[in-house]
């Protein structure tokens, strides 16, 4: 399965065009902010839609409240990599799936300690390709600098990196191969870039599908058969 974990479909009306483009690019699913009936949904066209929630940047308290409220309704929970308190809390909390580097990029610094916390709790660093498409020359060199530094910190700490398009318009979506090449620019080698595009997003989705199932109790413990006590 090829999954893009961050497609910012602006309206329900435009969803169809994103699905069509996803099919043309060979995607099997993508995560979107649009409210859906269930966290995991398979459409008639075969495309999978995953409900995604991004925690607010406004403060730790509101982020915690939003997490509590939305975890059971979201296939993906992402927190912005902004501010030490927010980043460290999100990196440590196993309910948060991704630490996202979003625009504007200048405040995004992944600390080594944060990356180590994230690596131990299974939180991945999500890098968006869209800022690279919308800038050029010196402005793009600044974007590349921030992304490359953060990616290197994550890799050194053993934190998984995930590449997403972050597409706000249909034409910002990219095929898996295209994303892999963009990963090379960010300092990933070809093999790691393939994992960041093909395997890691699938792993996060599978993990959360299991966690949100009614039989899940805690990591490593699930109900396999129900019986009656004698």
């Amino acid at each position, binding site marked *: 399965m090829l999954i893009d974990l961050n497609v910012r479909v602006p309206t329900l009306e435009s969803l169809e065009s994103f699905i069509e483009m996803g099919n043309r690019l060979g995607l099997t699913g993508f995560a979107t902010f649009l409210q859906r009936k269930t966290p995991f949904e398979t459409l008639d066209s075969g495309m999978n839609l995953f409900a995604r929630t991004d925690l607010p940047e406004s403060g730790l308290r509101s982020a915690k409240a939003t997490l509590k409220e939305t975890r059971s309704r979201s296939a993906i929970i992402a927190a912005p990599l902004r501010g030490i308190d927010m980043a460290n809390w999100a990196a440590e909390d196993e309910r948060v799936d991704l630490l996202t580097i979003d625009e504007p990029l200048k405040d995004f610094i992944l600390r080594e300690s944060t990356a180590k916390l994230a690596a131990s709790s299974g939180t991945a660093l999500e890098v968006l390709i869209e800022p690279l498409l*919308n800038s050029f020359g010196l402005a793009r060199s600044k974007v590349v600098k921030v992304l490359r530094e953060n990616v290197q910190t994550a890799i050194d700490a053993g934190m998984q990196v995930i590449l997403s398009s972050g597409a706000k318009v249909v034409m910002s979506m990219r095929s898996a191969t295209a994303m892999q090449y963009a990963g090379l620019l960010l300092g990933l080698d070809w093999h790691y870039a393939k994992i960041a595009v093909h395997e890691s997003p699938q792993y996060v989705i599978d993990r959360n599908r299991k966690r949100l199932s009614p039989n899940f109790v805690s990591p490593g413990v699930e109900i396999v058969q129900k019986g009656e006590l004698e």
Partner: protein
Amino acid sequence: MKIRRRRYLRFCLHRDGDPPSEKQLTREIRRNLLSLYGEIAVADSRLYLTEYNEDSGVGILQCNAALLEKVITSAVLIGSIEKTLVSFEPKKTSGTLKGVRS
């Protein structure tokens, strides 16, 4: 004389608007290559479009084998050509035209 190996790439250019011409597409790839990797990369790339169908967006480009990765990365990061939003999709690479077409 040193023999430089060539490499071919089959691609599809998805677009939202008027189709970019062959010249516009080549210019934009070179412009991105120059911006990301510099003048030496553009000079050594020997980048040409071998085939390109404006309507379908399907085409084949050839370049210096040593710079293939950089050429594709530059093409992938093109967001728009003139005022047309585009998405460059690399399909297949090969050392021969016959191979890239199959």
